[in-house]
């Protein structure tokens, strides 16, 4: 095992490669094209052979300071310059700087008569002269097969082509040879027999009326290479190839938490919100507020002075901004500050692969902290279900590798609430479900967290309110009458309040009764006391009167005895 790896490493190291400078191509070839050797690019008409080879030269000239020769068999220098001007390449500028040389080789069979033996030394001389005159390190022959149409003697041609490719190797230039795709072989004239170091096939497939460009490295002698078909894109900045799903699941993991923008939702997520770099799926039936949650999240991202990228597949940015303004979320301000970027495109506009490459490119350019895709369901229109899943997996992989938090909305239909159409829930970290709760002739929104990896999230269904001040989450009524939301919750709450009020009144009444009784009792006590006091006074008076009478009596008796001259002495 280890010796095998060593051998691989040795091969990797020993094999010199030339960076193509084309986005993604160096990744899938692990470093670029074989240095000093010819590479064959085969593809059907319009598959991007010429553009890819021209970008190889342009990148060489601009990035790696390697001048290049473009030998064109099909288009003149002017035509080429025009064609690649759309990619932002100014060939004339490169030509005057002697970084690029275009030699147009015209082969017109009607003008040429063949008699006897010949060789293609003239081509060699031209190529050699072109290479030497600017010190070229890169060469493109596009499309050398035209010679087969222009010259009749195929035996000579084949021998000469073999010699040409040999000669290119000896010359030490890194060459690209383009060829038309053949019916049964890679190329129409079997050029792959001669160019055997590296063979790349470009493909332009139309599926469900949507075209996708793909690239595959068929063969790369002496080097490891990605063997998958990779989608690629040609746009105003050139070619970008999307390196597919990373093979390992070894992204950096963050414990940092990011607020959802809705305090109560954060509270449901341990009070801290989502993990950074996690993926959130918000699914729900129509009109349950998926976009509102997304907008809150976008707004929260911007409030933290971070960038947010919003992929809208259903509504135009202006419509989203207007609608969100009505619930008090000012996305327009975020856009003006340059923190929020909308990328609105109909899902059917491109194929899935193209969407993916586009999204990846924009993410690369904008470097957002969070990404919103609203809704992913629409992407199904652009491809088959399993393709959508694989595309989303790749997108999520990519976002995770960049530690970007992503929110996806998903429209579900009644009955299939807990299943996503694209079956992507398994690759999501947090799944928030929005649902209608129909009670008492009205629909209300319920929200709950179906799963959230790595945290003790709430298991409660809450009521989700969209008000003019934004979105809010409140508790639902749970009581003897069951789970109630909306006006049912309100009326139940009023009823509860009434019952409570009447009970309070009763208590007050009893209290009052008691008070009255106490007062009565106290009054009686006072009266009795008063009576008692009066009696006491009376008795005292009587006693005093009695005493006084006794005294007077005694005195009277004394007086009387004195008067009677008692002779007792």
């Amino acid at each position, binding site marked *: 095992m280890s010796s095998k790896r060593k051998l691989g490493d040795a091969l990797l190291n020993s094999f010199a490669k030339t960076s193509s400078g084309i986005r993604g191509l160096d990744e899938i070839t692990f470093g670029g094209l074989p240095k000093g050797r010819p590479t064959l690019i085969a593809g059907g008409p319009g598959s991007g052979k010429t553009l890819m080879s021209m970008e190889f030269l342009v990148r060489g000239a601009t990035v790696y300071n390697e001048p290049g020769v473009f030998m064109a068999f099909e288009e003149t220098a002017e035509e080429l310059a025009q064609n690649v001007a759309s990619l932002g390449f100014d060939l004339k500028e490169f030509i005057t700087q002697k970084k690029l040389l275009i030699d147009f080789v015209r*082969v017109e069979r009607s003008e040429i008569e063949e*008699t*006897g033996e010949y060789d293609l030394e003239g081509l060699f*001389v031209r190529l050699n*002269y072109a290479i030497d005159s600017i010190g070229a390190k890169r060469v493109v022959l596009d499309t050398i097969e035209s010679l087969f149409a222009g010259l009749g003697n195929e035996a000579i041609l084949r021998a000469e082509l073999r010699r040409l490719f040999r000669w290119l190797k000896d010359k030490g230039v890194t060459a690209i040879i383009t060829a038309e795709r053949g019916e049964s072989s890679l190329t129409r004239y079997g050029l792959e027999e001669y160019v055997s170091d590296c063979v790349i096939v470009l493909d332009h497939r139309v599926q469900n009326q949507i075209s996708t460009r793909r690239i595959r490295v068929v063969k790369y002698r002496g080097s490891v290479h990605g063997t998958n078909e990779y989608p690629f894109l040609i746009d105003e900045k050139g070619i970008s190839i999307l390196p597919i799903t990373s093979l390992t699941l070894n992204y950096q993991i963050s414990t940092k938490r990011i607020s959802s923008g809705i305090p109560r939702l954060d509270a449901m997520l341990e009070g801290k919100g989502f993990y950074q770099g996690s993926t959130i799926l918000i699914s729900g039936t129509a009109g349950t507020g998926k976009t509102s949650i997304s907008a809150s999240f976008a707004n929260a991202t911007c409030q933290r002075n971070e960038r947010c990228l919003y992929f809208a597949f259903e509504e135009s940015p202006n419509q989203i901004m207007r609608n969100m303004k009505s619930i008090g979320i000012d996305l327009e301000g975020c856009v003006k500050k340059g923190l929020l970027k909308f990328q609105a495109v109909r899902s059917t506009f491109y194929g899935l692969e193209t969407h993916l490459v586009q999204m990846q490119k924009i993410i690369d350019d904008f470097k957002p902290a969070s990404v919103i895709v609203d809704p992913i369901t629409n992407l199904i229109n652009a491809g088959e279900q399993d393709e959508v899943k694989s595309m989303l997996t790749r997108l999520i992989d990519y976002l995770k590798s960049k530690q970007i938090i992503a929110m996806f909305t998903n429209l579900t239909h009644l009955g299939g609430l807990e299943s996503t159409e694209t079956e992507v829930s398994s690759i999501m970290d947090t799944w928030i479900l929005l649902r209608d709760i129909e009670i008492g002739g009205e629909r209300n929104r319920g929200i709950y967290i179906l799963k959230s990896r790595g945290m003790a999230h709430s298991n409660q269904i809450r009521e989700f309110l969209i008000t003019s001040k934004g979105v809010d989450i409140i508790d639902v009524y749970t009581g003897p009458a069951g789970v109630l939301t909306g006006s049912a919750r309100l009326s139940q709450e009023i009823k509860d309040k009434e019952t409570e009020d009447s009970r309070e009144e009763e208590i007050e009444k009893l209290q009052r009764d008691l008070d009255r009784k106490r007062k009565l009792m106290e009054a009686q006590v006072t009266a009795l006391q008063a009576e008692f006091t009066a009696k006491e006074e009376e008795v005292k008076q009587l006693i005093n009167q009695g005493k006084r009478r006794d005294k007077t009596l005694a005195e009277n008796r004394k007086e009387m005895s004195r008067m009677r001259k008692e002779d007792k002495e």
Partner: protein
Amino acid sequence: MYEKKEPSKEKQDINDSEYFELRLYVAGQTSNSVKAFSNLQKICDEYLKGKYKIEVIDLLKTPQLAAGDQILAIPTLVRKLPEPIKKIIGDLSNTERVLVGLDIRSKNDT
């Protein structure tokens, strides 16, 4: 310049006023090139006596001239005059084809 030469035997179709300016592109003294030159010389002497000029260009010495006449194959004979430009590639071993290629003889009258 315009030598009035008695037209030889069957070449009535040649316009008397035509003067042939020919260029033979070679790359060094390869056998094909040597053969081509001698074949050309022979044909011209026979059919275009006095009405031609041959310029031999060795691309090993002047490679910059190759692109101008769109030279790929070696040897290539280019009829610069009369116009239009005609090209014949190969060692010119097939006289008939050379004559046709140079418009000295039309394809039909063999």
